[in-house]
């Protein structure tokens, strides 16, 4: 099973890795079966049904059947996420509210153990996350604080993207996809190395045309390519993984003097897992990641080094996890559009942590207690406790509750952004959340699985823009906002037959933010984001004949208001439908025809003034070996 997936969710959610969807072994594909760890004690496989958290898992088949080509589009399948497409390049994605391109800074995203949350600007650059979805094993979407193991910035949620080990992706696979204003090609080859090793290499290229803004080409089209590899070895001294990716994209720079922008990056990750006994396991991971980008009138680049290790132990009723990590990154920032700069323009920052978590199981009750100490170079030491309680009411029902503290650490932009004589550097402190959750997960009937979570989030010290007393200027970024959100997340699957599954899910969100005593926030609560009150998703995956699949998706998203920030735009409520018909020509070849956003010619999803409209589209895809 994927090591780091378990590191992350493992102790918090011991079973996600095993339970690909929501069921038992009969629901697993043959690749998934080949990936079940059979004798792990310290990482005991359990069903998703036993995870005491609000987690939705997209497996390879969910991704494949719904015909998505990017991670951001795949995340539309998760009912506990709100996805707003801003333009051809950008998305705003959040769980439990505070969404928006600027405000969605509380969702941690990890790809095979490598964090892609930027501590530099605070947030996730979705355009930089392009794992080969063909080989993605699963995407685990946790809404709510990630608990002890994930640490800082896993405030509103965690997305854990896990690719398959190389020995499960052997042979040749490829796909060619073309739609209106969109092309995508990828090829992967996997082979064996000696008796116990395997590798795969892949290459992909894509081209996206401009989207529409007010009926005109928005100038946001981009194209690029990526190559990468993964190797896995089993030896006497454990399991080794080495993997890396390299990409080069052409993006619009929006710099009049030099319109050609770019996005380039590389990463390399090594991981070593060793079982010391059947009750003890050790893991060590190291990675390097760097990117440089010229886009949106800005040049920025970050190089990151990260090392983390952890030890798992089983002692009687206790499952202990202790670990530590250190990350160091260097960044640079230049602005070509306006006088905003970072002071200093280049800096090196670091983040270190140590944590311990104990999972105690007694009969039908499991208690998880965790504590993490995290030190960041801006504000020093922070403590992050987490307590979870799960009660297995019956074979088919689990009740759980959790109380967690989570923080978002200051980014360089929060601290060091300067506009001479207008905006000055700040001493911005971490934003803090205390979250209360109550959940149910169960199978009320043999063909039905259900998950429901009630949450209450209490935020303190959220980012505000504070004018100087008396003189108004300079404005400083402060911690002047506070507020709370609450809501319900619920979803379920209904298997009408072996060949037909209906999945439905939705969320509601209520939100109240205000200025704390002493705050004069002039951003008008911008950091509280722009969120619909509710959204609903329904999908139907059916096998019409032995070789023909029909997949239908419907979504309805409530109106996304924009009253908080001047010149932002309301995104009216919308309903949309996607449809896909797949013909499996042979066990190697399949051809599919898909239509997306079929109900309207175009509709907006985001509230940013620069937003473009998402259009009705049709695509044809040919796949080999996937």
């Amino acid at each position, binding site marked *: *099973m994927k090591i780091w997936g378990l590191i992350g969710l493992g102790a918090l959610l011991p*079973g996600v890795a*095993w339970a690909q969807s929501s069921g*038992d*072994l*009969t629901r*697993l594909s*043959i*690749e998934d*079966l*080949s*990936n*079940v*760890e*059979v*004798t*792990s*004690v310290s990482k*005991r*496989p*359990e*069903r998703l049904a*036993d995870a005491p958290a609000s987690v939705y898992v997209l497996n390879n088949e969910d991704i494949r059947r719904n015909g998505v080509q990017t991670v951001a589009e795949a995340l539309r399948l998760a009912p506990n996420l709100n996805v707003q497409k801003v333009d051809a390049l950008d998305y705003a994605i959040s769980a439990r509210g505070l969404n928006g391109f600027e405000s969605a800074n509380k969702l941690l995203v990890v790809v095979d153990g490598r964090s892609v949350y930027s501590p530099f600007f605070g947030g996730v650059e979705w355009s930089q996350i392009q794992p080969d979805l063909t080989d993605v094993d699963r995407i685990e979407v946790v809404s709510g604080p990630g608990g002890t193991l994930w640490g800082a910035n896993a405030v509103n949620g965690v997305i854990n993207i896990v690719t398959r*080990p190389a*020995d*499960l992706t*052997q*042979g040749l696979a490829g796909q060619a996809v073309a739609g209106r204003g969109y092309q995508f090609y990828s090829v992967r080859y996997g082979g*064996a190395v000696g008796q*116990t090793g395997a590798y795969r290499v892949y290459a992909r290229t894509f081209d996206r045309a401009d989207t529409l803004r007010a009926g005109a080409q928005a100038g946001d089209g981009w194209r690029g390519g990526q190559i990468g590899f993964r190797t*896995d070895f*089993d030896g006497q001294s454990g*399991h080794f993984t080495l993997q890396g990716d390299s990409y080069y994209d052409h993006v619009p720079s929006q710099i009049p003097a030099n319109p050609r922008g770019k996005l380039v990056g590389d990463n390399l990750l090594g991981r070593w897992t060793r079982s010391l006994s059947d009750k003890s396991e050790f893991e060590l991971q190291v990675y390097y990641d760097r990117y440089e980008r010229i886009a949106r009138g800005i040049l920025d680049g970050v190089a990151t080094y990260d090392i983390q290790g952890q030890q798992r132990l089983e002692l009687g*009723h206790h499952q202990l996890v202790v670990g530590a990590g250190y990350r160091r990154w260097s960044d640079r920032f230049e602005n070509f559009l306006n006088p905003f700069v970072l002071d200093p323009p280049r800096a090196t920052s670091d983040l270190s942590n140590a944590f311990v978590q104990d999972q105690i*199981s007694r*009969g*039908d009750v499991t208690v998880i207690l965790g504590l993490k100490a995290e030190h960041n170079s801006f504000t020093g030491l922070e403590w992050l406790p987490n307590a979870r309680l799960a009660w*297995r009411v019956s*074979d088919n029902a689990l009740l759980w509750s959790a109380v967690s503290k989570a923080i978002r650490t200051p980014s360089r932009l929060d601290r060091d952004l300067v506009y001479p004589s207008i905006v000055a550097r700040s001493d911005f402190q971490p934003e803090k959340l205390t979250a209360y959750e109550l959940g149910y997960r169960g199978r009320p009937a043999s063909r039905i699985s259900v998950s429901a979570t009630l949450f209450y989030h209490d935020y303190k010290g959220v980012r505000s823009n504070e004018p100087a007393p008396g003189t108004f200027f300079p404005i400083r970024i402060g911690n002047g906002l506070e507020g709370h959100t609450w809501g319900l997340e619920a979803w379920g699957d209904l298997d009408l037959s*072996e060949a037909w599954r209906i999945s439905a899910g939705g969320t509601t969100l209520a939100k109240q933010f205000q200025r704390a005593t002493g705050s004069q926030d002039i951003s008008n609560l911008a950091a509280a984001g722009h969120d619909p009150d509710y959204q609903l998703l329904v999908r139907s995956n059916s096998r019409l004949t*032995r070789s023909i699949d029909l997949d239908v998706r419907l979504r309805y998203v409530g109106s996304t208001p924009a009253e908080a920030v001047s010149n932002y735009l309301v995104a009216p409520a919308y309903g949309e439908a996607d449809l896909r018909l797949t013909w499996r020509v042979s*066990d*190697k070849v399949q051809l599919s025809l898909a239509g997306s956003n079929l109900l309207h010619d175009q509709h907006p999803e985001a509230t940013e003034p620069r937003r473009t409209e998402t259009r009705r589209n049709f695509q044809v895809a040919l796949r080999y*070996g996937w």
Partner: protein
Amino acid sequence: MGLRILLILGLLVCGGPVAAAQERSLEYPVKAAFLYRFGSFVDWPAGAFANDRQPLLICIIGRDPFGPTLDRLVSGQTVEGRTLLVRRLPAADPDAGCHIAYLGGSSSQSVGAAAHALAGAPVFTVAESAAPGVVAQFVLRANRVRFRLDTRAAAAARLRISSKLLNLAVEVTQ
């Protein structure tokens, strides 16, 4: 903890002595799932099934390490529209109509002897050890259940194995 694992798996409750001994391991539940899942990736020759509705017969020949786990797993499942049946036989019988046979071996008939007895019959044979005539052999790799495939044995049994299954095999003997 034992009871908890049983609940978690939801598969092994009343699992008998074998399952109880392996309650901490998913090895045999996973192998049982493989056993019937293989059926989706194999084409049997004409005549192996009397008609489109005939169930796919899974035989456990000799030692049975699965117990009721296998029966629970396959109940209600279908492979290419066929329901699944499980039969347990003390020794290999080429006329028993097995489509997939797990050769557990026994004191009276070794795995090799069972494979030999089925030679030429259209049976997808599965075993834990290598023997002439065995099509699929379970192996453990990195704590996961994987398998080797022998395409010569498959050809002798007039079975066509899909390339997807061949790709997943840790080793293909030709």
